[in-house]
């Protein structure tokens, strides 16, 4: 992979970040037009992301220094296969969720004027989108801190948007955990700066030696990011926050926001420190991930409310992602494990967003989401339930979905690396997820004769849930080009002590 002149003109990244920021400003000023701006901005950003993916796919990774200042002084941005993929999935899921939100937040008739629909969803969502795009492109650890914070605050504000007590308490707990995470991350950055005097990811990778300061920084930054990515012991804030948030927001949180922290961990462990250096410590996230898969699934099995079930399923599915660290420690399985993790990220993003939107439709349609009383939901919301089923198939990891490809890659990587318990965990996780997905579905599928009150759900909301589910299905058939994109490595300095990727 010889990266041609990486600084091919600047604009490839500017509009992806400046676009949503400009849209947010426009919405803050002209609030009534927010939805229109939102959809327009969504289209533009999706187009830009697609163009960036094509650019990275054939030209290899691209890199740029902002303002023309060279590495240690200025801030570097970089787009390799991983960031282009994440940008693409954020655009795809974000675009469809924007359509859902346009229908969800429109002031439908009969809404009480005293509690107007929050049109300020749009600027907050644009800030979140800008933060995600900036985070996926950043190659500077302090810049990552600022984007992490921008993302955290907008996510918290979106969670508390409905202003109900449950949502506000959950948002508050989420904020405090997120701040603690960002702080320990910042302390890690300060330590690295103190020890090596540079903030660029590339120059760090070149100079990193396993000095005590570097290991302490790795520990602090990883702890902070694991807290924000809701890894097992530090996940308690996620279920209430994702369940209490409005439907489009919980979809965004579960599908994208939680993955951003995991993305940073990948950058840290694979690009800055290199998997060889972190092999010893890789077992910790691995074990925690395995426990998360089992514990999360068990909690999902006993959840009473549908959104709580889906939120615990997020905790469980996140556990899978962290299996990449121990698997990547083994030389042979590194490539497969890397592709497995990213493929899991994008397949889970589509499927989880679809499931949350479908759960949102159930909440609106039935007025509640208590699983026991949702019998015969298939008859009232056929499109949403079909979307739920198709997305459920991808969450479980049954073919022909994207989830299956990820599960297949994980199992082969685990067997290749000789980590038999991890392979067993992946397979057991699939069985447990079948249990809790079909626990709801067997009730929804039941044939109920008497008609129960089910108010109309806007067709755009039902079809967007199905669209996302079909994306998860399509990911099952388009694996080679997508995995080819992920293998475009970062344009780091050749001298970088890159344990690196395939």
């Amino acid at each position, binding site marked *: 992979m010889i990266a041609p002149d990486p600084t091919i003109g600047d604009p490839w990244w500017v509009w992806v970040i400046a676009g949503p920021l400009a849209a947010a400003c426009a919405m803050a000023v002209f609030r009534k037009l927010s939805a229109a701006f939102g959809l327009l901005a969504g289209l533009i950003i999706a187009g830009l992301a697609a163009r960036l993916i094509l650019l990275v796919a054939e030209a290899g990774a691209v890199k740029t220094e902002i303002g023309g200042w060279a590495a240690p002084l200025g801030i570097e941005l970089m787009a390799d296969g991983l960031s282009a993929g994440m940008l693409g999935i954020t655009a795809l899921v974000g675009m469809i969720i924007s359509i859902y939100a346009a229908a969800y937040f429109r002031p439908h008739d009969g809404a009480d004027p005293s509690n107007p629909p929050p049109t300020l969803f749009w600027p907050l969502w644009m800030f979140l989108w800008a933060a995600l795009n900036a985070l996926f492109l950043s190659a500077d650890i302090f810049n990552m801190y600022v984007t992490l*914070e921008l993302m955290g*605050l907008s996510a918290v504000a979106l969670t508390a948007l409905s*202003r109900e007590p449950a949502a506000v*308490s959950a*948002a508050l707990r989420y904020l*405090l955990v997120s701040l*603690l995470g960002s702080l320990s991350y910042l*302390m890690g950055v300060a330590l690295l*700066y103190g020890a090596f005097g540079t903030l660029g990811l590339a120059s760090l990778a070149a100079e990193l030696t396993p000095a005590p300061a570097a290991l302490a920084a790795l520990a602090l930054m990883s702890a902070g990011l694991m807290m924000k990515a809701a890894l097992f012991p530090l996940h308690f804030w996620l279920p209430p926050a994702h369940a209490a948030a409005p439907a489009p927001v919980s979809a965004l949180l579960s599908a994208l926001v939680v993955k951003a922290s995991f993305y940073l961990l990948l950058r840290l462990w694979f690009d800055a420190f290199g998997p060889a250096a972190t092999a010893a410590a890789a077992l910790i996230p691995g074990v925690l991930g395995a426990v998360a898969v089992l514990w999360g699934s068990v909690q999902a099995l006993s959840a009473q409310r549908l959104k709580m079930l889906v939120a615990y399923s997020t905790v469980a599915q996140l556990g899978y992602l962290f299996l990449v660290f121990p698997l990547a420690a083994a030389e042979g399985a590194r490539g497969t494990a890397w592709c497995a993790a990213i493929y899991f990220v994008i397949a889970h993003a589509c499927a989880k967003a679809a499931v949350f939107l479908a759960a949102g439709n159930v909440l609106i349609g039935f007025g509640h989401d208590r699983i026991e009383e949702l019998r015969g939901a298939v008859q009232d919301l056929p499109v949403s339930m079909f979307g739920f089923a198709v997305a459920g198939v991808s969450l479980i990891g049954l073919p022909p979905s994207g989830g299956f490809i990820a599960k297949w890659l994980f199992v082969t990587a685990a067997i290749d690396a000789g980590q038999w318990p991890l392979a067993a965990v992946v397979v057991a996780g699939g069985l447990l997820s079948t249990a809790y997905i079909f626990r709801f579905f067997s009730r929804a599928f039941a044939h109920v004769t008497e008609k129960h009150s089910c108010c109309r759900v806007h067709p755009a909301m039902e079809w967007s849930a199905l669209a996302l589910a079909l994306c998860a299905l399509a990911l099952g058939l388009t694996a080679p080009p997508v995995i080819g994109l992920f293998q475009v490595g970062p344009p780091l300095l050749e001298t970088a002590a890159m344990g690196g990727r395939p």
Partner: protein
Amino acid sequence: MTPPLLYALAGVALFSIGVGGLITAAHLLRQVLSFNVAGSGVFLFLVAMAYRTPGPFPDPVPHAMVLTGIVVAVSATALALLLICIRHESTARSATGEDDRP
């Protein structure tokens, strides 16, 4: 025991006091306060890193990071306080009687 090292240790001490407080504090407001204490600890540490440069001018990059950190801390604290007000008001109004711990 050069002064910058001394300040760095003080910064680290502040940071751990803040983090300890954030984890064990019962009341929400106290947790926001400990977050600010921890924040200032990190900033003190950064400034200490800046003062290790010989010569009259300290290293400006940590200063810029501190400034950015302060603004971010202000925004986060404002949002946290607002949420506490809303929660306090809504719990008082709906009298759920939930204990003060989040």
